[in-house]
C-alpha cells in the first residue's frame, strides 16, 4: 500500500544565507494492507518529517513515495488532493478547522468529501464522537473552544470517519486518559482488520507494542548515520 524508496529531504533557508540543511537521506519503508508500522527515533530524528512527506505536506528532494500506485513525490496537487480525499487519512496533533463549524460537521466532513449524504455522514460522526466520549452537548459547538484532549479526540474521530485504506497517525494517544486511549487503540485495530495500512508515531511505548507490527527507526535515515 505504501512503498518508499531512496527518499531524501533538504530544506533550503533562503533567508538565512541560503543554508541548505539535509535532514533525510535514503529513507525506505514498506507498509502492507492491514499492517501497522511505528516510526521511532529520538526527537528530531525526522519522524514527523517523514510522515509529512508521505502526506504530501513536505516536498521530497529525491526518491519515491508510492501510495496505492501514486508517487506522491511527483504527483500533481490535484492527484494528491484526490488521494487525500479517498485513500490517505492523516491524524495530526493539531486540530485546524474553520471556526464556528459544529463539531459533528467537522467530523462528518471527510465522509461528505467522498460523496456521502449529509445525514449519513453526520450519523457516522455522531457514532464516533460518542465512542470517543465527547459529551453530546458539545457536538453542536465548534471544537475551537474545547480542551486539548477533547480537540485531540475530535481530530481522531475525523481521521477515522472515512475508512481510508492508508492512515498516518501522529501521536494519536497523546494527552488521552486511559479509557479514551483504549478506544483509539481499538479504532486502530479495527482499521488494520479491515485492511488499512497504518503508519504511526507513538511516544506511548505500550500503545506501540499493542498495535504495531513493526518498528522503523528513522535515525537510520539521517544523513549523519552514513548507512
Amino acid at each position, binding site marked *: 500500500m505504501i512503498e518508499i524508496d531512496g527518499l531524501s529531504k533538504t530544506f533550503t533557508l*533562503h533567508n538565512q544565507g541560503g543554508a541548505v540543511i539535509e535532514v533525510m537521506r535514503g529513507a525506505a519503508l514498506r507498509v502492507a494492507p492491514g499492517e501497522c508500522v511505528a516510526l521511532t527515533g529520538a526527537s528530531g530524528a525526522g519522524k514527523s518529517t517523514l510522515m509529512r512527506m508521505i502526506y504530501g505536506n513536505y516536498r521530497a528532494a529525491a526518491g519515491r513515495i508510492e501510495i496505492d500506485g501514486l508517487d506522491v513525490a511527483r504527483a500533481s496537487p*490535484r492527484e494528491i488532493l484526490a488521494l487525500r480525499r479517498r485513500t490517505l487519512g492523516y491524524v495530526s496533533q493539531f486540530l485546524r478547522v474553520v471556526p464556528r463549524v459544529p463539531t459533528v460537521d467537522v467530523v462528518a466532513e471527510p465522509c461528505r468529501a467522498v460523496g456521502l449524504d449529509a445525514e449519513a455522514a453526520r450519523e457516522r460522526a455522531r457514532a464516533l464522537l460518542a465512542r470517543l466520549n465527547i459529551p453530546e452537548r458539545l457536538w453542536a459547538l465548534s471544537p475551537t473552544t474545547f480542551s486539548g484532549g477533547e480537540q485531540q479526540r475530535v481530530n481522531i474521530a475525523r481521521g477515522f470517519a472515512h475508512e481510508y485504506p492508508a492512515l498516518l497517525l501522529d501521536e494519536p494517544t497523546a494527552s488521552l486518559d486511559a479509557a479514551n486511549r483504549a478506544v483509539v487503540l481499538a479504532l486502530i485495530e479495527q482499521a488494520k482488520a479491515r485492511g488499512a495500512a497504518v503508519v504511526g508515531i507513538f511516544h506511548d511505548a505500550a500503545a506501540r507494542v499493542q498495535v504495531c507490527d513493526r518498528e522503523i527507526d528513522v535515525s537510520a535515515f539521517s544523513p549523519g548515520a552514513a548507512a
Partner: protein
Amino acid sequence: MNAPAPVVASDAPLLRVRGLEKRYGARIGCAAVSFDLWPGEVMGIVGESGSGKSTLLGCLAGHMAPDAGEVLFDVGGVLRDTARMAEAERRRLARTDWAFVHQHAHEGLRMGVSAGGNVGERLMAVGARHYGDIRAQALDWLGRVEIAADRIDDRPTAFSGGMRQRLQIARNLVTGPRLVFMDEPTGGLDVSVQARLLDLLRGLVREMGLSAIIVTHDLAVVRLLADRLMVMKDGLVVEQGLTDQVLDDPQHAYTQLLVASVLQV
C-alpha cells in the same frame, strides 16, 4: 470525425490559463501565469499589495483585457478563450457561470435596491419573469447566507459589513455559477464575522461543487479555504502547489519570507 473528442467531466479542467500577461505601459501587471483549475477546486492567490494578484483576477474575470495569453473556460464541454470571445458572450458568462465577490460589498451590490432585488437581479437578467418565484428564490438564498427573511425589503445601506458581504455572496450564487472569483472576501471584516463568512463560503463551495479563485493576503484564510495556492511577487508566480505544502514547506525565498512574517497560521 474531426469534432473535438468529448471530454469526461472529471478529466477536463474548468479553467485553463496559459501565458497570461498584462502590462501597464512598461510595467508588468502580471506575466507568464499558467495554471489549470478543476471543478470543485479552490485556489488561493497570495502576495503583497502590488504583486499583481488583483490584476490577474481582473484578467481572469474579464474585467480587463490581457495583453497576451489565454484564459480558457469550459463552455459546454469545450475550452473557449474568454479573453477573445465577443463581449456579449463574456458578459453572459459573467452573469451565469461566473460570480465575482468584491472586497467592498458596496462595489458588488446595488445599494439603492432592496436585498431581495439585489439577489433577484441575476435571475431577472437571465429571463425570470415571475415575481413570486423570484422572491421565493431570493428568500431561500437569504436564508442560506443567514439573513433573516424579514430583511428582504431592506436596502443594504441598513446592513452591517458582514451582512452586506453575505448578501453579495447570495446575489452572486443565486444563478448557480460554476466559478467564483473572490477579491479579499473577508478583508475589512471583524475576525468573528470573517469566521462566519469562511464557514459559509466553505459550505457553499462544497454543496454546490463550486470552483473558486480567492485573492487575499491573509494566509489563514487560504489555509482554511484553498486546496491550492499560488504565490505572486512583482507580477510573477514564484511558487504554486498544495496550500499546506506551500505554507509548511515553502521553496521560494519570497514564500519563506511571507510565511515567516506571519503569526502562526
